[in-house]
């Protein structure tokens, strides 16, 4: 198994290389550049040209690529053209925000989805089951921004239970307990919104797995040994039904950094999704390329993690 993992990790190198080549060339192919947006009647076009030359935009693409990749290999992804700070600092800041938001919502997703999925599977065809299915269809169908706006409107502005924008109040002293509580307070509403939207697949997988399991031989065996139904569900069926969910766990973990553009925008939450889209719009090449490389790497890592997790939870599966 370790050999396989090593081989998979080594395979990532050429994959990442090809990705870097693609994203670098495609990014440069976009019309405009980071300086296009700086143009006003008062800026001097020749100064903008100078800045373009300084930034090396007129060098042949392979020269630019060489500079970029050699720096990137040493961990230097350059400066953001928009924010004028190191890309790694910028991504670190936004990534951290996104990480906490995603982590909280991932926990909430499991907290909501697992009980609902189990109940729906156990009491199949009942009123409860139908209500849960209805809920999961609605949450699947409703566009993110609609639900976000509705929640913001009701819980943020009408009932005033939650703050309406940002990650923390400005007046608090960083490092104090009040500061961290305030941060969590700010996370709640976006995380709940995010979680409600993300439960569908888990509920559905879990429900159908449980329905399948109910007729399996091991369940009959357990029942015939006199184990109470409740225990059969919590011990035997539940563990087996979690397999398809475990299959996604790797992606869920690496997806924590992906960001959620709609939620971030509506809740005024500076995260990765917002950063990615705005960097594309402003042609902030260094940020675009770094983010795509990061997302690409996380996807590869996610699939590897999922395989490893699967082999741990299901001994029948071996990655070879």
């Amino acid at each position, binding site marked *: 198994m370790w050999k396989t993992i090593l081989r998979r990790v080594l395979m990532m190198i050429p994959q990442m290389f090809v990705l870097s080549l693609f994203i670098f060339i495609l990014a440069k192919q976009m*019309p405009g550049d980071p300086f296009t947006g700086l*143009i006003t*009647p008062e800026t001097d076009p020749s*100064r903008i040209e100078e800045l373009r030359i300084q930034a090396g935009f007129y060098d042949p693409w392979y020269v630019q690529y060489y500079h970029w990749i050699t720096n990137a290999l040493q961990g230097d992804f350059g400066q953001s053209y928009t924010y004028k700070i190191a890309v790694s600092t910028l991504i670190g*800041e936004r990534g951290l925000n996104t990480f906490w938001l995603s982590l909280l919502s991932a926990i909430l997703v499991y907290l909501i989805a697992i009980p609902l999925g189990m109940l729906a599977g156990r009491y199949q065809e009942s009123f409860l089951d139908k209500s849960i299915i209805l809920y999961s269809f609605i949450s699947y169908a409703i566009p993110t921004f609609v639900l976000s706006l509705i929640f913001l409107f009701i819980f943020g502005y009408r009932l005033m239970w939650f703050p309406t*924008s940002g990650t923390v109040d*400005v007046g608090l002293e960083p490092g104090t307990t009040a500061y961290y509580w305030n941060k969590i307070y700010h996370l709640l509403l976006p995380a709940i919104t995010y979680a409600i939207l993300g439960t569908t697949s888990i509920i559905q997988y879990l429900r159908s797995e449980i329905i399948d399991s109910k007729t399996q031989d091991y369940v009959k065996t357990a029942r015939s040994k006199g184990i109470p139904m409740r225990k059969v569900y919590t011990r035997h069926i539940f563990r087996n039904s979690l397999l398809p969910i475990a299959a996604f766990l790797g992606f869920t973990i690496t997806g924590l950094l992906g960001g959620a553009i709609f939620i971030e925008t509506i809740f*005024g939450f500076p995260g990765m999704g917002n950063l990615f889209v705005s960097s594309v*719009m402003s042609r902030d090449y260094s940020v675009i390329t770094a983010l795509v490389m990061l997302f690409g790497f996380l996807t590869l890592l996610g699939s590897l993690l999922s395989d490893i997790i699967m082999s741990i939870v299901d001994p029948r599966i071996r990655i070879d």
Partner: protein
Amino acid sequence: MKKNWLMLSVIFAVMLVLTACNSAEKNTAQTDDGNKDKPAQTDDNNVDTNSIPMEITNEGDVIKGGTLQVALVTDSPFQGIFNWELYEDAYDSEIMKYASNVLYELDGDFLVKDTGIAKLEVDAENNKAKITIQGDVKWSDGTPLTTDDLIYPYEIIGHPDYEGVRYDDDFKNIVGAEEYHDGKADTISGIKKLDEKSIEITFKKVSPAIYSLGDGLWGYAEPKHQLESIPMKELISSDAVRKNPVTLGAFKIDKIVNGESIQLVANEHYFKGKPKIDKVVIEVVPSTSIGEALKTGKYDIATSFPTNQYDGLKNLSNVAILGRPELAYSYVGFKLGKYDKANRINIFDEKSKMNDINLRQAMAYAMDIESVTEKFYQGLRVRANSLIPPVFASYYDETLKGYNYDAEKAKQLLDKAGYKDADGDGIREDKNGEKFTIRLASMAGSDTDEAIVEYYRQNWKDVGLDVQLTTGRLIEFNSFYDKVQADDPEIDMYMAAWGTGTNPSPAGLYSEGAEFNFSRFVSPELSEMLKDIDSDKAMKPEYRAEAFSKWQNYMAEQAMVFPTFFRTEIIPVNKRVKNYNVDYANETELQNIELTADAPLK
């Protein structure tokens, strides 16, 4: 994995459409026509822009101190570069206004007055300016303002390692700036310290633009005692710029949460006296919820409020709506030549397709802009008559007639010019009887842009002109300017907008050497007029006003570009703010803001 990428690209495509508006406008003055104020579609409810007040006085007793809550309406985090030489994003400057290192106060025409921290005296004959610190002024940390602090910003901009846009032709107008930038000199030779309170700057040439802070004159001071130890390359990422800048304004920065909010406290050293309120809190508020936030009394003032949400504000009892003209105009331009990059010169081509005054005027008359302002913009935009926005009261020529909608006149002009419908299909042919199609480049912005452009195309068809869109659809912001700037042969005419800034001199946009003279029109008369506006004689305000008027009339007549809209900026203010005035000529000064309740009214 395949699926993930597909999803990503789909989501991404949707996002592009949704965020196009805000991101594009955010960092640019090269505005897209219809970005910020997506027009709302209503048939009635038009406002007379003159009826929106610039000033409000509210009832109630003033409380002691208090915190002013300011909403910065944007869907992206602010960049947080709090330095006038280095910042690029307009939202950063909105924030800096409260802390401000501004040296001069400006009048209604944005010309330097004598009442600021520093006094400007221009010696036009010798191309010199003397700048004197008036009275005892202190930085927010208590250190006195010195002449070194006046000189330091010039040394930042001119520095060999400076990577901003402000090292430009204007700046090179300072004697010795280029030598300093090239590393041949340790100081800028044209800037001299005269005594403890004043400096003298020698320019290559002084023009009337110096009073609009042009010609290389810089309007801000920087705290040398705080910044001098930081190497230029690191300045932009240093704490002195990002976290704890030392400032001169009414408030000083106290706490910052990167990209989302900032808290300022009253500056006890402010040269006009400590402000009456204690604190200002500025927060980023997404455009989707600003209306609701104002309604529930979260904020006192909203800056860069999206005009398309004007309707939602009208019935709020706790918010007063103030308005003022924007420093911008929308326009239509015709391609009449090419830009020669090597020689940095515009080359006017007399044989170009659109080089017929009657044709251009006819196209202007044929556009029913009046209906568009009513139906799509609720009257918050009006048909423009000049390339100078009316806010520049002394230079704007209000007598200009402009091209008010008149389809009959358009037809007559086209007949006169020889564009006749030879084959009877309702579409005119060109002067030689050949098929005549005009290609229009138009930017994609809000959801109503397409409808508006289609309406104009119908207007032109009504007078017999076949206008087709370049590329067949609206063009994304970056591509649009790429194409227009590169004189794409697929463009005969284009619709765009300019933010004018506070210096109204049109030389940067319409002169022979100007790369942004996108129409590429050049004539000896025009060059003469532009020179006249910035000439020595124009140091006299009356002469300059006259020169501006001549130029506006000439541009209107030639119609190589003709203005379409003037815009109104909307500023909602909570009624607990005692007095507030947004008129550029008479803005409420920050230290005088007072509040009548502990929290914004609901």
